[in-house]
């Protein structure tokens, strides 16, 4: 099933008189359960693409169906709810909330949720389980500034997963990590993709990441390169540039 369906997405940034076009007609379909790597040099439009997929930003033109539902001109709070329920984010700079410890950071999106909330005890159980899955059990009471970069990114991964999202977007999550740690973080995400069926979209400018990828979407100058896409590393993943 198509989880993400982008058609003719363009994005312009206005900078005074000039207009920077970050995306020029992107078509992209992402299936549930896929692990997609968006690869491209700096400035190619990866962040712009992920922000649009993540409902953080809206395209200048084109259509976007998320889980079959058009993401149109919705108001901020509606989009906030979509982000809260359907999407998890992992950022290059980890973006944890500095005053919260590991447990509190992980549970945070669930506590900010609108409407009825999960009972605290069951949430706490899931948080601890998830913290275990990402290898943070010894650090539950640590604040972000007491953790290494890799540990912080593990917290961010757990925070992205606590809402049981349809889709996790990771925008260059390894760009601030050393290569050994990067490997571990990528392995962790692959494992979560395989074991829990979480859909990941992972952007990077580091070609070494390709070794791990089942599906790589190359982006350059705001366009997806058709020839590069479709080189599925595993026959199981159906990928196609549309």
């Amino acid at each position, binding site marked *: 099933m198509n989880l993400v369906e982008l058609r003719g997405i363009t994005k312009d940034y206005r900078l005074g008189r000039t207009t920077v076009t970050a995306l020029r007609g992107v078509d992209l379909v992402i299936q549930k359960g896929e692990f997609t790597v968006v690869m491209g040099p700096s400035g190619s439009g990866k962040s712009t693409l992920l922000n649009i997929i993540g409902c*953080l930003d809206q395209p200048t033109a084109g259509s976007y169906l998320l889980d079959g539902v058009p993401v149109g001109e919705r108001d901020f709070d509606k989009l906030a709810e979509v*982000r809260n329920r359907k999407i998890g984010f992992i950022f290059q700079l980890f973006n944890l*909330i*500095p*005053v919260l410890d590991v447990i509190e950071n992980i549970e*945070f999106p669930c506590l*900010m949720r609108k409407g009825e909330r999960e009972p605290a005890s069951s949430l706490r159980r899931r948080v601890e389980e998830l913290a275990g899955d990402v290898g943070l059990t010894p650090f539950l009471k640590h604040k972000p500034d007491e953790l290494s970069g890799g540990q912080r990114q593990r917290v961010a991964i757990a925070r992205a997963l606590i809402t049981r999202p349809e889709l996790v977007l990771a925008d260059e999550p390894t760009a601030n990590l050393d290569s050994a740690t990067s490997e571990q973080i990528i392995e962790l995400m692959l494992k979560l993709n395989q074991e829990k069926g979480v859909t990941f979209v992972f952007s990077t400018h580091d070609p070494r990441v390709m070794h791990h990828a089942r599906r790589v979407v190359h982006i350059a100058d705001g366009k997806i390169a058709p020839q590069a896409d479709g080189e599925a590393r595993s026959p199981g993943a159906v990928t196609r540039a549309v």
Partner: protein
Amino acid sequence: MFALIRIALRNVTRNRRRSLITLSAVFLALTVMVGVRGLLNGLQATIREGVVYGQTGAVQVHRKGFLKAMQGAPLDLDLPADEAFLGKIRAVPHVTAVAARIPFGGMVNHGDQTVFSLFTALDPVAESKVCPQRYERVKVGRPLDPADPTGGDFTTPLLSRLGVKVGDGVAILTNDRDGVLNAVDMKVIGSFPEPGLFAADKKVGFIPLPLAQELLRMPGRATEVAIAVDPLDRIDEVVAALRPVVGPEYEVSSWHDVAGYVDEIVKNQNLVLNLISNIFLFMALLGILNTMLMSVRERTREIGTMMAVGVRRRQILALFLLEASLLGLVGGALGLAAGYGIIHHYAGEGIVMRAVGSTTDIVIHPFITAPFVARTFVVSIVGAAVAALLPSFFASRLRPVEALGSVA
């Protein structure tokens, strides 16, 4: 909401130095507000009591038109100073004492010195119940005494002008109500430095009512009835109840009417106090505004992160308003406590002060009321939130992508 409160609390302690500076500003403002209010409360109470218990009494009864003609101290606008009339007044609920008086002008003579002065004829016993502070002001000798029918008390400036000491004899000269000049011999039995607060004329004498009635040829009459009321906040009730009792030929006035300048003074003092308070409060709130602006700027990426994980705009707004309110709450509570502490420290012994141009000390017992404390506390918390409104609103209107891109 609880999660937001937790984050707000921790954020307040996050930038300790900045929070402390802001807290000190709020603290200082509240301390000053409470301290000055307490001092003024004490001062105003002293003034009020000095006037009510030392000059006017709580309520006065005169013949109609007397107060308008007060400067001339008219003797023809008189009233009965007998038990039939005074007893009716005394029977009104909350009236605790009734004293007949006659204010009049005249001269005091001793040897070849004669000085114009103002006199008040007082019932020595009743007056001590209506205006006990008059008697307390007598520093040398003793106050009026029913056992001493020709003994009078005079201000020290008057006595020194005459070259008279306590114990000496003087003569009082004045026109009676028919315009005939009369005189009576008296003994100075006591002296007091000043007739009372805000008294324009310092040459004043108090003489026993029966002696004055003889001098003025108005036996059994007076021109003023001063009335003590307890508790004092029942004055309006007493005034209303007295009107039908004394009838339409008489006017019943509270001390507010008789000594209107006191309310005027209190009003002006409060005006100045409010100005000072508002300036201090304004500075403190500017501090909060600045703190919150800096906080929002530094935490832009954090705000973006919160928005990314689905925090709604009004939650962001609430978070920053909460943080500001916490500063207002903590700073306010500490400031109120400090202000209260200072007031409490001086409340017992009192602060001794002397008005400009005065020769007597007044003692101020500062105090504050619970409603004032509650109101000031609320102002501190709500004011802090209001001061943070703009930065908090900015924070809540940030665009997530731009906020996330912030490197601050």
